[in-house]
């Protein structure tokens, strides 16, 4: 009897395995659904993120302006890549901003030397960051745990210090690196069509070009740069899904789980971890290339250790080791940064102006430290709350809420039947 039940379940899982590999673009049903949602969100974000009419008091909470939406996508890519290293292998790098910075400098140099096509910039950014990732990863991965983190931090700070001092002929030091009229630009022109500095383009289409659609009191901006980033963020997300579901991804999780067992199973953890490190470094470099493609200027502060910390926060806040978590975390932090830091005491007074004067001043005084320049305080508190109450990050919060609403459905479609 035991035999019979187990043989039917073997068949069942075999069918499931086939289904998983022949779904949409080689993705399983659930992954394909998630991927679809991400595509729809990226395409319609300019509308979704501008829910408040332009002249309403709430308009300042709109996130649908091009610069911010570009940041969502670019830092989403950065965090997706970081999560491939940290989420899967458990190696916590505190130096990934170095690759963001290296990618940015490589991108600007492409604008200066070759031409303003953004494809030059992102390609060079990815490649050069990859080379640095091989070097830094090879050395840092000789240690694990906290020592690995410290090594990566040291390398990033070294890059930062070098960029400020010895390498300033390349990085332009504190005066940031940017495009000038005197650049060679062998495949492009020295000046832009309007006689000013040339701007990044994709085969002649300017990244900054925006089509504004007015719909009654609402207004939506459709920006070319945003959609350029969007295409690559969708690609990056797709790649992440494939890696997560691949044998390679499984090996990376094995690295996190038990390297000892891995070695005695005939697997060498070192190249797996290095590959994950290089992939995530290239994602970071690519994100740096995109940053300068949107705004062709690169400064050393992009390599600062607080930047490295930021991507750690994004990943943990969103949900380490989950597919969508890092993207949510990146969006969440960039939104808070942009919106909270805009709020000043004048805005607060206008909100609470309806209150009696004494009470108004009191409430403004309490809220004030958490907004404007103090937005990091809010971020810190939120981060603490998430780590303590939702160790799985925003994704866990989402699943918990989802479970409350559709408990029945969840058990029906669950991939792992209760046995």
């Amino acid at each position: 009897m035991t035999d019979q039940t187990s043989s039917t379940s073997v068949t069942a899982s075999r069918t499931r395995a086939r289904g998983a590999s022949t779904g949409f673009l080689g993705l399983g049903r659930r992954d394909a659904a998630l991927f679809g949602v991400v595509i729809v969100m990226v395409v319609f974000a300019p509308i979704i993120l501008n829910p408040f009419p332009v002249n309403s008091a709430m308009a300042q909470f709109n996130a649908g302006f091009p610069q911010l939406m570009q940041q969502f996508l670019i830092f989403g890519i950065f965090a997706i890549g970081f999560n491939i290293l940290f989420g899967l292998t458990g190696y916590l790098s505190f130096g990934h901003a170095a690759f963001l910075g290296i990618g940015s400098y490589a991108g600007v140099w492409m604008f200066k030397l070759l031409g303003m096509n953004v494809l030059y910039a992102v390609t060079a950014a990815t490649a050069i960051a990859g080379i640095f990732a091989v070097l830094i990863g090879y050395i840092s991965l000789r240690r694990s745990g906290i020592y690995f983190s410290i090594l990566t931090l040291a390398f990033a700070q070294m890059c930062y210090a070098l960029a400020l001092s010895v390498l300033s002929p390349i990085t332009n030091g504190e005066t940031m690196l940017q495009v000038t009229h005197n650049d060679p630009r062998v495949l492009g022109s020295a000046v832009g069509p309007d006689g000013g500095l040339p701007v990044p383009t994709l085969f002649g289409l300017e990244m900054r070009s925006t089509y504004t659609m007015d719909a009654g009191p609402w207004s939506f901006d459709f920006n070319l740069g945003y959609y350029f980033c969007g295409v690559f963020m969708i690609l990056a997300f797709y790649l992440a899904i494939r890696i997560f579901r691949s044998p390679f991804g499984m090996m990376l999780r094995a690295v996190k789980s038990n390297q000892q067992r891995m070695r005695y199973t005939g697997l060498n953890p070192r190249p797996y971890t290095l590959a994950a490190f290089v992939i995530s470094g290239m994602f970071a470099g690519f994100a740096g290339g995109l940053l300068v493609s949107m705004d062709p200027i690169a400064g050393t502060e992009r390599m600062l250790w607080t930047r490295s910390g930021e991507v750690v926060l994004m990943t943990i806040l969103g949900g380490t080791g989950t597919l969508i978590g890092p993207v949510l975390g990146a969006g969440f932090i960039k939104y808070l940064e942009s919106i909270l830091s805009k709020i000043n005491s004048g805005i607060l007074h206008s909100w609470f102006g309806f209150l009696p004067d004494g009470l108004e001043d009191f409430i403004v005084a309490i809220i004030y430290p958490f907004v404007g320049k103090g937005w990091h305080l809010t971020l810190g508190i939120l981060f603490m709350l998430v780590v303590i109450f939702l160790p799985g990050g925003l994704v866990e919060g989402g699943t918990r809420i989802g479970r409350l609403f559709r408990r029945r459905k969840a058990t029906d479609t669950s991939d792992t039947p209760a046995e």
Partner: protein
Amino acid sequence: MGILEVKGVNKRFGGLQALGDVNLSVQDQSCHAIIGPNGAGKSTLLNCLVGKLIPDSGSVMFDGQSVLGRAPHEINQMGISRVFQTPEIFADLTVLENVMIPCFAKRDGAFRMHAIESVGGEVELREKAEEMLREVRMLDKRHEHAGSLSRGDKRRLEMAMCLVQEPRLLLLDEPTAGMSRADTNSTIDLLKEIRDTRNITMCIIEHDMHVVFSLAQRITVLAQGTPLVEESPENIKGHPKVREAYLGEAQV
């Protein structure tokens, strides 16, 4: 010549001579047991075979090739798998994934960048892993997290992970410790069947004499890091030196 030849192996930990001039020859396709009191150096000897420790002196040859100085994963790729005294499994992964990983290692070697293929598409490997899980009667637990298994199940899982690689030499360090009587008996049956049906050599460390006498064709008694006797099971039972080793330890 045996498939495994250990000659003059010494290993010191500080002032402690854990292994002293160990010679051991394991015949191809046999089951060789190593017994001895606690602290005799049995696990240390296995550690020297799989590259976890490097002996201070001596040689270890597997199938005519030295294993000394090779990394653990290289030794495994030569065909040696090991079950540890405390189960070493991938606790965060599912039971099925635990068994699929050794399948990948066997098929693809120590490293392969298979990042775009899907695990779900590896139907053959999956069936092989499931077949193995059925043999150790854990198929129904294949979607569970390995970390949540009972100690006995963890051991059986680790054994499945080693067996699915079809190693030429299987090293088992107390494979039935922590198992119920029923599980122990089914493990004996499994190992017996594997011993008799596959091209495999087994080297087993065990305190449970029932297991030893059910499986072993040769038995080496190790005490204080030195082999005392090597005999067939029939001759070992009443052997005076063996009694001395065990009783001597009991008196201390």
